[in-house]
């Protein structure tokens, strides 16, 4: 696989075309789940897995599936992958599924996955689709973690509280109490806090892009046009 193309895929997923900050896809799970950094991490990991699997499956089947039936087939593939993840978690990682249980089915509502299947995986060989799934998934997961950490810090004064529920007993020490005990701004925990937090992150990204020089803006517009 061409290294420049691979780098482009990763740059797109992590920054230039980040599913959370630029495409603004998958807002339903993104806003609903990110009350804490650990929740964000959990949904992020599950999303990465589903995205990689569905991208691979779609890419492998891309010559078999005619355009007329591709969308139902993609939906079927995605739903199957999510169910496989859900059942496997319940059977073999039961405690983890207790924590992630409600998030896993939410992945079905994440349009990022359908968008990547349609826009990328259905036109590219499996190896590129694999890279794209990883890059987009990690980009999405990073937004989830950042938003979760921010809301958790403002909402209850900690970061990475309850990490042991997701990662096992060793992670208990990860919890950082950054604000005095009893600190809490309810707004950050409620849905409006999620919208405000995401809005601030999008604004920050726009600021960082526009700051250096006009050159980068044109680059950005080029990629946007190319995508459209």
């Amino acid at each position, binding site marked *: 696989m061409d290294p420049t193309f691979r780098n482009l895929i990763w740059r797109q997923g992590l920054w230039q075309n980040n599913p959370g900050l630029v495409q603004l896809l998958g807002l339903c799970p993104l806003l609903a789940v990110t*009350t*804490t950094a650990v929740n964000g991490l959990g949904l992020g990991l599950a999303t990465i897995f589903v995205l990689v699997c569905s991208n691979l499956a779609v890419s492998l*089947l891309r010559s*078999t*599936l*005619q355009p*007329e*039936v591709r969308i*139902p*087939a993609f939906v*079927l*593939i995605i*739903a*199957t992958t999510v*169910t*496989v993840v859900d*059942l*496997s978690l*319940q*059977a*073999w990682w*039961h405690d983890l599924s*207790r924590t992630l*249980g*409600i998030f896993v*089915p*939410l992945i079905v509502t994440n349009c990022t996955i359908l968008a990547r299947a349609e826009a990328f995986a259905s036109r590219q060989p499996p190896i590129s689709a694999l890279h794209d799934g990883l890059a987009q998934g990690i980009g999405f997961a990073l937004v989830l973690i950042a938003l979760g950490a921010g809301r958790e810090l403002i*909402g*209850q004064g900690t970061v990475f509280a309850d990490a042991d529920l997701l990662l096992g007993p060793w992670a208990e020490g990860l919890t950082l109490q950054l604000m005095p005990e009893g600190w*809490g701004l*309810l707004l950050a*925990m*409620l849905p409006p806090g999620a919208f405000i937090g995401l809005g601030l992150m999008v604004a920050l990204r726009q600021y960082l892009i526009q700051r250096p020089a006009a050159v980068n803006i044109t680059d950005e517009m080029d990629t946007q046009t190319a995508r459209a």
Partner: protein
Amino acid sequence: MSLKRWKPALALIAVGLLAATILAGLDRLTRDRIALEQERRALAALTELLPAERFDNELVSDWFEHPVAGLERPVRIYRARLDDQPSAAVLDLITSRGYSGDIRLLVAIEPDWTIIGVRVLEHRETPGLGDRIEIRRSDWIRQFDGASLRRPIPEAWAPDRRGGQFDTLTNATITTGAITDAVRLSLEAAESLDEALWATEPDTQALEIPPDLSQNP
């Protein structure tokens, strides 16, 4: 009609069959394990309230369902017995009066109708506020230990915001009220059943796993 026209449909059918096969196989592979894990978890929650030396019967299958006025769904009552003598009852109940939906509680009661302990199994209350009903977040739920319908007196069986005796969690008045009321209702239900609580035959579908809220987001 030419074969070409049918090709898309056939491809879709093939994908559907493949998906169905994978899911059916995985379901076969995981079904027993999942049932086992859920049973283990239900038992773990029960034994957290009741130490193993308090009962020697098949606690997980010795239950019946009983409708309770004030609760939308019937309460599942587990009977713990030691040497065939009643040693405790555990009520598995769901109240829908929470701030954001259902709260599932386990209430363990002595044969003399005082509370051994209360635990929240599942809930969707606001993180940081209502979730302090969980034992791992605060000791609030322990204030019911040792309570009964005579201690405190009936008028005091309410959160202190409503003139009762139980502490109200700050910014979680509705959650607090829902749990306090549900605990009182379960005590009343148990006492009014009296001897019948121990004598009622277990429901037949004894190995069915209690409905799991976390499976229905």
